[in-house]
């Protein structure tokens, strides 16, 4: 599969993958492993916090005292939204820039330095938060004050990540020069590069927000305008999720290719969609400032629409082109009956495939639809800081990104850790369990938020005017969290039992559970297949999107007059 090309560098630093023929740079492999392990540790800590805070918001349980609720909520946000995802993305960036390009990582030592900074930063954050010196939430809004070590931790972590991103670009540049791959970058690497470019300005914005905050806490600067901080923070906080988005979409393309042999329908269209992200998605930072004083309608409306929703258009393109590619691949293999026959015959036991579908459906139908709605200037008034917000981003970042990343880990185990995947049945089941749990969490939060329940709130029982039905929503959230944590434990069990097994394993195929079906030549001869089923699905999606969006305008139209 991979082109045999001359390696101008030390051949002994490479091995050839038995399943793909890719050349794997061993120093890069070690770094991929280290970052992936760190990511898994973070999700373990963050997941424990998730369980405890969800059990507190479930009114019948109401587990933690208030101070520990806010403390662990802070920890959960940082370990999950930042540490788990960024460590995993760094692993993904090294994987994409070396293995997929048959290339060497340019400066492995610098990679280890970056890793050390990130581990140190992450550890400092965790320690200072657990000591109770930084109960400021993920957002750490000035003038809330945390211990200086908190800001130092965030800054160290960001600098480490920035170095890793720099290594990714340098590695691609050297690979191009050393001709380890031919022509254009593969689409997956192209998507990762989009994520890396977004990461660069995101992490710089993080520095612009946090460095003055540190100086302010130390008393070196007398004032830090809270509104300016909010603007700078969200130039970091929101695009940080767009890194996840771009990386997740890249991984979607990878999972589709691994599990069904799908090839992009139209490279130009998919690449264009990534460029749309790059150009417009950062404007989404303003979504958090829509009901802030001090900003004009024009500013809010321009930014919130990502300049005419062009970044949303990017997502809608991927929403068509990825399932479309899967559909065409499966139809080519002879599953050509009816509109959706290909879907029935898809490899549902293969965790990469089921996770791809679950991730895409939950990301788009719940996360995307609620995100665009909440991010509409006027509609934000009936959603801002209610539980609809975490409801939205648990659908995007957890149901979407985390489900996809978890499944991708399973494929890294034979390819990078060179261990056979254990507990295969658990792995097959895991995306369904995790997906079901997070769906309940997300819908519980969204419906609670629509009824007025505030996010980041220890106890709602003293808000007399909330309808009794909010308890149904919050119970759904609690039960969903238990199921999702079960899915997380299954993931950890599969990963740990595989990685910790002694025996080296050289995979012969890319897939884990179901055999890789090769394209039948007979079917291929039938010529071009068009993704009719996908077209029907995306049209149904658009109808649902429109219904939800317009229902929210109706809801807004019923409230008090406000100007």
């Amino acid at each position, binding site marked *: *599969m991979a082109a045999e090309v001359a390696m101008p560098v030390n051949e002994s630093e490479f091995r050839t993958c038995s399943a793909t023929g890719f050349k794997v740079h061993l120093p890069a492999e070690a770094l991929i492993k280290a970052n992936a392990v760190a990511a898994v540790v973070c999700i373990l800590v963050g997941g424990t916090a998730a369980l405890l805070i969800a059990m507190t918001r479930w009114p019948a349980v109401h587990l933690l005292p208030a101070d520990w609720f806010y403390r662990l909520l802070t920890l959960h946000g940082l370990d999950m939204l930042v540490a788990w995802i960024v460590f995993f993305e760094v692993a993904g960036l090294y994987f994409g820039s070396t293995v997929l390009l048959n290339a060497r990582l340019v400066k492995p030592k610098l990679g280890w330095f970056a890793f050390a900074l990130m581990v140190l930063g992450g550890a400092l954050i965790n320690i200072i938060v657990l000591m109770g010196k930084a109960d400021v939430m993920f957002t750490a809004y000035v*003038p809330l004050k945390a211990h200086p070590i908190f800001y130092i931790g965030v800054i160290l972590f960001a600098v480490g990540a920035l170095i890793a991103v720099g290594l990714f670009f340098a590695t691609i540049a050297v690979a191009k020069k050393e001709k380890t791959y031919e*022509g254009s970058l593969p689409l997956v690497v192209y998507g990762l590069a989009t994520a890396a470019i977004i990461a660069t300005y995101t992490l710089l914005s993080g520095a612009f927000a946090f460095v003055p905050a540190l100086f302010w806490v130390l008393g070196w600067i007398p004032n830090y305008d809270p509104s300016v901080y909010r603007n700078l923070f969200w130039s970091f906080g929101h695009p940080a999720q767009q890194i996840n988005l771009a990386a997740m979409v890249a991984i979607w393309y990878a999972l589709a290719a691994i599990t069904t042999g799908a090839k992009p329908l*139209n490279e130009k269209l998919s690449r264009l969609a990534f460029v749309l992200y790059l150009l417009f998605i950062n404007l989404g930072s303003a979504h958090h400032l829509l009901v802030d004083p001090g900003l004009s309608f024009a500013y809010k409306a321009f930014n919130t629409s990502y300049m*005419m929703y062009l970044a949303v258009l990017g997502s809608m393109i991927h929403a068509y082109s990825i399932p479309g590619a899967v559909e065409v691949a499966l139809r080519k293999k002879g599953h050509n009956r009816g509109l959706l026959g290909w879907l029935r015959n898809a490899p549902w036991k293969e965790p990469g495939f089921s996770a791809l579908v679950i991730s895409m459906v939950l990301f788009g139908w719940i996360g995307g639809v609620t995100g665009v709605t909440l991010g509409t200037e006027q509609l934000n008034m*009936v959603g801002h800081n209610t539980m609809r917000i975490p409801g939205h981003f648990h659908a995007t970042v957890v149901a979407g990104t985390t489900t996809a990343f978890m499944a991708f880990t399973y494929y890294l185990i034979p390819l990078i850790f060179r261990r056979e995947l254990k507990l295969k049945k658990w792995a097959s089941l895991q995306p369904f369990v995790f997906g079901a749990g997070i769906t309940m969490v997300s819908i519980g939060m969204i419906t609670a938020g629509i009824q*007025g329940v505030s996010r980041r709130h220890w106890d709602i029982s003293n808000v007399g005017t909330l*309808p009794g039905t909010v308890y149904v929503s919050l119970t759904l959230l609690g039960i969903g969290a238990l199921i999702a944590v079960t899915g997380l434990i299954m993931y950890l069990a599969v990963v740990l039992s595989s990685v910790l097994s002694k025996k080296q394993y050289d995979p012969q195929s890319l897939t884990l559970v179901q055999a890789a079906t090769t394209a039948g030549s007979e079917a291929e001869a039938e010529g071009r297949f068009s993704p009719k089923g996908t*077209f029907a699905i995306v049209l149904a999606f658009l109808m649902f999107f429109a219904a939800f969006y317009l229902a929210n305008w109706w809801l807004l139209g019923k409230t008090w007059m*406000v100007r």
Partner: protein
Amino acid sequence: MFPPERVWWKPLDRMEKNWVTIAFIWCLFMTAMMPIWFFMGRQNVPVTSYRVEPQAFQQKVMDFAEQYKIGDENGVPVVAPPPGDVYLLARQWQWYPILQLKKGETYRLHVSSLDVLHGLSIQPTNLNFQVIPGYDYVIELTPTDSGEFSLVCNEYCEIGHHIMVSKLMVTE
């Protein structure tokens, strides 16, 4: 996953063109909704705000509460002002004062914070605004229902955040 063919910039096929067109029209519709509602809708995000010193704002609220006070509830004055400028102070962990408004009348509700960020959430109407120290946010509000409403702080403001719940009365 694998490098594409040498020439990958191919024209879109019919189905791709259709989907991109439909999706783009939807994007344009959503873009248009905001200015349309801005000019025609009755619920728009307030855009008026002033810089204010937190201490000066607090003084203003105290004077205002003194002037229109009609009662007292747990030490917080209940205030029934005429339509026009009304004031609400957010501070750890209290809304001050308790406002009594009239249904159908329009008020210019000034809200700001004395200390950290707070969130003004009127329930169950479910209207939510950010409250930032140093900024006097002017919300032109016309209640269209009467009764007792909750004011909930929905921006984390340290340990007492969840006790920062008050009420807003609207009379016929």
